């Protein structure tokens, strides 16, 4: 019985952590457009980035197009 008084509050703390992590994941956009990351590698740099338009130097577009799109 005594062990329960330790273990159950501990499990409650775990739940709290899981709930907080879930909340964070939703509101930081982890659930937004979940297939976009997989597609981004196939997209050309000419297409405007959908999530956040970033400033990109013109030289990078011609030379390192593929590498740049993976970073997005």
């Amino acid at each position, binding site marked *: 019985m005594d062990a329960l008084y330790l273990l159950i509050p501990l499990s*409650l703390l775990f739940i709290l952590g899981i709930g907080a992590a879930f909340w964070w994941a939703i509101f930081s956009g982890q*659930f*937004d457009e979940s297939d976009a990351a997989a597609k981004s590698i196939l997209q050309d740099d000419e297409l405007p980035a959908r999530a956040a338009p970033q400033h990109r130097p013109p030289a990078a577009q011609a030379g390192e197009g593929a590498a740049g799109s993976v970073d997005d």
Partner: protein
Amino acid sequence: MRPFSIFSIPGRFSDGQRRERRHMLARLGLAWLGMMQVMMFAFPGYLRGTPMSAQDRSFLDDAIVMMNWISLALTLPVVLYCAWPVWRGAMARIRRAHVSMDVPVALGILAAFIPSAHAAWMGRGEVYFDSVTMFVAFLLTARYLELCARQAVGQGGLHRYIGHYRDALSARADRAAIGFTVVQLAVAIAVGLAWYFHAPERAVGVTVAMLVISCPCAMAMAVPTAIAAAHAGAEAAGGMPENQLYRLMQATGRASRQNLYGAMAWHLLMMPLAAAGWVQPWLAAVTMLLSSLAVAANSWRLFKGQARRGARTPTLGAMAGGGVLMLKGQPHWPAQGRQARRGPH
């Protein structure tokens, strides 16, 4: 067909739509998380009836008191945060002296939560925290599906015909659902009172089960999901000529009616069983979820039938649903013709 997740939020959404979907998803996920925990902590309570030694009995009683407090701590955020749309909706409706689907839900939650909190506080009596959290989680599941359906339609702009048709259908369905719900609420309260005088210790359980059953989640989903399915089907097929659109509308109306009458049949079947005291509140919540999922599945069937219209449909042929049979009978437009007709929208 490309894989599709209802939990992934499409990138095309406006900020308002995204915010709404995120909040709903957070409420849904946290309600399920809370529900699973509370179900686990509710388990010792179900062992009460089993024969055991006096020492085991006193140990079990101590454990139950502790579990009840923990269940209360877990249920409180589910009731206050996850069920917030219910409170908001119910308050807004009550102020305007209307009954909507939020009112029976709010009553159901309160009727189960307040006696349970009282029992936990006193350290004796039945608690229904597991039923409360299940009810909220399942209700939010139905609402989330409904929200997905509504937002999927809102995104692409509804076809003019589908829009008109939706307005007519949902007005009729709302009237039917509200009348049905008011009657059910009255019956639930009357039966609860009858049990209170006949066997007071069971009155709360029976009333909670009946209020859970009177929640019109499945009826509220009947039209929005069918419309969303028709809309998605029409989009998947590209444009379609008028006569074909007319048939699609007929199939949509049929699917909506199937949804609505099916949900009503579930209510009519479950109410007497619950009134007789044969349905536990948790069982009522489970069957409520099943009826909502059945409605969603029926609408999904409409979409599938539409999307693969003209293709071989051996599995759908076995189903008795009029909507699909209707769609099966339609002529198959060659791909080229379909492209040519795409123009107007």
